[in-house]
């Protein structure tokens, strides 16, 4: 485990069905995540993914790499660009890469890694300053 090490990349497809499932599981029923009419009515290009869904999917890059969802100590993102999800079978493809920015020993003696995450759709980043601290 060294600073600069790259995480195994992950690509996740997001379809309208995934947005409906996430709406139900999270309780976020904002209609911009399921109604084209309302999404375009507020100036969006179309139905967009919940930011918190994008954050959770990007988190899988980290939990998959460290092998344990309970190892996450911090996780933070900025939502910089909406993820538009077309009404077709392909949806949007979220491409995730990550890198170990720092390995440290915490005051309690726990070894942690700070990981930076890049999330792209169609080659453009959709999250800013996405990073996590995980116990090793």
């Amino acid at each position, binding site marked *: 485990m060294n600073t600069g090490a790259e995480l195994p990349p992950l690509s*996740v497809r997001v379809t309208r069905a995934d947005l409906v499932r996430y709406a139900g599981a999270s*309780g976020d029923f904002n209609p911009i995540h399921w109604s084209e009419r309302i999404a375009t009515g*507020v100036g969006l290009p179309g139905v967009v993914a919940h930011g918190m869904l994008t954050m959770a999917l990007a*988190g899988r890059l980290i*939990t998959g790499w460290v092998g344990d*969802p*309970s190892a996450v100590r911090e*996780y933070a993102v900025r939502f910089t660009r909406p993820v538009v999800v077309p009404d077709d079978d392909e949806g949007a493809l979220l491409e995730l890469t990550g890198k170990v920015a720092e390995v440290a020993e915490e005051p309690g003696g726990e070894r942690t890694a700070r990981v930076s995450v890049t999330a792209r759709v169609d080659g453009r980043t959709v999250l800013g300053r996405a990073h996590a601290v995980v116990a090793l």
Partner: protein
Amino acid sequence: MPDAGFVGRALPPTEPYRVGREKVREFALAVGEGASVCHDVDAARAAGHPDLVAPPTFAVTFTMPVMEAFLRDPAFGWDYSRMVHGEQSFTLRRPIHAGDELVTVLHVDDLRTRAGSHFLTLRCEVADTAGEPVLEATAVLVTREAA
């Protein structure tokens, strides 16, 4: 125009939210988290957990409604319909487990206005019913003044 007089205030603690096993499984499925500790109680216990482990962002399921209730309070004056989520962070003292009873206190940490947009920082402190801290979830929410 949101009322800056709310900055620095904290809301009264919520009633305890009980984390259900099936809710953890449902959320893990919805975000594609396949780790066995999120789905299989035996696997979670074998890994030293009292019950299923919730994925790292699970706290949105019970903190978002607390924030929404505050944002819809007409006394605060926030334009909920024009809001976007700007930033989100979680600091986890320990993972959330199925069976946890969690109490949330919402803090209004900051409100700034720049170039016609309001940036509001809301922080949810989540503890168990014994008062032991579990996590903090902080959101920066942005709304534009109507043109």
